[in-house]
């Protein structure tokens, strides 16, 4: 199974020509909106997963119950089987519309696990959390251990973003993606994200831009996980969106059943 992040720019595209088996959208962009484009995708036999950006699981503001209620309605409207958000803060007591790191400490892992549990209780279902790119962070344990604690304590799933692992590895010389996943319970992975990134000389850091083709090492690891464990792969391409044929070529590259 190979999916694609659905963007509003695709509203005018002939989506039957896009060779994806499933799609993903940010619920924040579809709450109280006309869902016709999404229902069309679902009617074509391709499910739509929800991948949020603003739940603020790592933040300190109380979880937004009105928002979660709206997400719950959207999940029901779309018959969505997966809802995820990031293992990150969206701001402090307020939103800043980005994803900020939470310190890799036991106390933070416990606090965030409690927030994941609260979100799952409010939604009446299990959710997935996504590992994020971080550009600087503090803490006492490696990220893989931090994530493993939260998955176990909150009994939630993991949306494993291999590109984010690759960006963090390049920026901080932490465990490479293949090493990192050895510390995870693969049975908890809902699906995989792959994307491209860019080096930004202004900061001396690779930034998670979702504006480039997928790196071959990221693609190979994703294909291995799919071949060995049946875990689906989803391609994220959010900025500088290419034309449909380029996207189809990228999807075809991901679809090859034997890693190249």
């Amino acid at each position, binding site marked *: 199974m190979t999916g694609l992040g659905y963007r509003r720019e695709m509203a005018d595209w002939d989506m039957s020509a896009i060779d994806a088996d499933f799609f993903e959208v940010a619920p924040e*962009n579809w709450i109280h909106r006309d869902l016709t484009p999404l229902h069309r995708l679902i009617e074509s036999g391709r499910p739509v997963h929800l991948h949020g950006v603003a739940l603020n699981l790592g933040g300190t503001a109380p979880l937004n119950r009105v928002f979660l209620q709206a997400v719950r309605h959207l999940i029901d409207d779309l018959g969505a089987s997966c809802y995820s958000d990031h293992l990150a803060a969206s701001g402090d007591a307020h939103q*800043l519309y980005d994803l900020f790191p939470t310190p890799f400490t036991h106390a933070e892992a416990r606090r965030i696990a409690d927030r994941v549990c609260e979100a799952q209780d409010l939604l009446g279902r299990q959710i997935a959390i996504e590992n994020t790119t971080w550009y*600087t962070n503090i803490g006492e344990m490696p990220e893989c251990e931090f994530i493993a604690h939260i998955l176990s304590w909150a009994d939630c799933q993991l949306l494993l973003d291999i590109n984010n692992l690759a960006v963090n590895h390049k920026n901080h010389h932490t465990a490479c993606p293949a090493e990192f996943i050895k510390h995870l319970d693969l049975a908890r992975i809902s699906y995989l994200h792959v994307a491209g990134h860019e080096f930004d000389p202004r900061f001396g*850091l690779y930034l998670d831009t979702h504006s480039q083709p997928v790196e071959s090492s990221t693609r190979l690891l994703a294909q291995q996980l799919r071949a060995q464990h049946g875990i689906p792969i989803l391609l994220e391409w959010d900025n500088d969106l290419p034309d449909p044929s380029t996207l189809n070529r990228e999807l075809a590259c991901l679809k090859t059943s034997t890693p190249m």
Partner: protein
Amino acid sequence: MSEDFYAYVRGRSDALPAGYTEHGMRAYRHLVFIGASQMVEAHFPAIRQELGEDGWRALIAAFIRQSAWDSPCYGDLIDEFRSFIARESA
């Protein structure tokens, strides 16, 4: 997460929060700036042309510095921007 972290990201302070790198903190400040800049420009493209690049950067930086945004929906940033302009012009 320390208050210092978000004070730096909002541009209220240039003091680095303890333990975080300057490169990383500048990247976060930049990403928040880009997020606000892109959304405001998409709705008010004429403002950027009228102000020029320096004026535009100062306007968006001031918008972020005073921010206390609450909506989970990024698109609602435009309502916040309108309120900010109304407050600034009062």
